[in-house]
């Protein structure tokens, strides 16, 4: 029973996400803007709607960065450890994802949003748990949704920013949630 619990419990992936936010995006929350992004469309914040008809004074740029870290236990330690056959961890894998959305006017960032996800999995002799592919996808979707929630909270300000003329700097401020220096 113990080995069963250890063997299968060890394969679970733990997730941390920052900033911590409650709530989800509302259905009618959409932000129309010209968006610069060349990655998989699945990972673009869902509230962003690519719209070439709106003012081009402010463009949005979305980027993400994925980092991997595999930390297997030393082979000898794993081999001589009698608990290995009961599902004792053989190593840990980490993946960290940082997403950022910038509002750019005249080559200067006037507002930015960010989110980061960290995922950790533990492998055993019985299984490796989620693959890096699964962890990456899960993390990118969490980051995407987190930034979407932040955008929806600020949509009034953002509507003003996106509709503002290049000379109007009244709405150029850092967001209180997920803001990056």
């Amino acid at each position, binding site marked *: 029973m113990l080995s069963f619990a250890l063997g299968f419990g060890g394969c679970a992936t733990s997730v941390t996400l920052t900033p911590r936010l409650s709530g989800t995006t509302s259905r009618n929350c959409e932000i129309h803007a010209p968006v610069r992004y060349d990655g998989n469309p699945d990972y673009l914040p869902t509230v962003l709607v690519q719209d070439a008809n709106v003012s081009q004074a402010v463009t949005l740029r979305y980027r993400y960065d994925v980092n991997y870290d595999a930390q297997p236990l030393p082979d000898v330690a794993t081999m001589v450890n009698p608990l290995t056959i009961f599902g004792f961890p053989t190593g840990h894998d980490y993946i960290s994802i940082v997403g950022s959305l910038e509002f750019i006017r005249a080559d200067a960032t006037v507002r930015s949003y960010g989110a980061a996800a960290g995922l950790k999995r533990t492998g055993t002799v019985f299984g490796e748990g989620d693959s*890096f*592919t699964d962890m990456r996808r899960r993390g990118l979707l969490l980051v995407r949704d987190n930034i979407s929630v932040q955008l929806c909270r600020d949509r009034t300000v953002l509507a003003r920013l996106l509709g503002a003329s290049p000379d109007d700097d009244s709405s150029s401020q850092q967001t209180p949630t997920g803001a990056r220096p």
Partner: protein
Amino acid sequence: MKIIRPSAFTALALTGLVLSGCATLGPAFKPEQSPPGDKGTVYIYRESKMIGGAVSYTVHANGMPLAKLSSGSYFVYHSAPGEVEFSAQTEAKTSVTVDVKAGEVYYVKGSVGMGVFVGHPHLVLVASGVGEKEIVECKLVPGAPSDGAIVTAADRKQN
């Protein structure tokens, strides 16, 4: 009582078996001089190690087999831009997705972890600085396809 002595034939056969793993690999690592500019270059390698050294596995790109990765070997793969999932399987499956950009170089490191009946394959994307150092001791897998004329994840969605 008759003492069984290993004959010359047995000794030769054993030597052949031991050395056969090394004989299948090609020349030592040499970085590509002129990779195609419209594709990304992915080096897939595995450091030479005693433990798990007998285990080898086939690496796939978006489900298509590329080459068998054994201890101390590497091969190069030119991929069209887009997400490419590199995977391998023994009794457990591993995969890592690389968002390939044209003109960029990536290093996917393979290894073997402990399993119940056979070692588990492990693939991870490492930083260029790490990959450049570790791949130096590896030898080329002969006959590995290097052209990236396979479908990307985005292509598969469209079809």
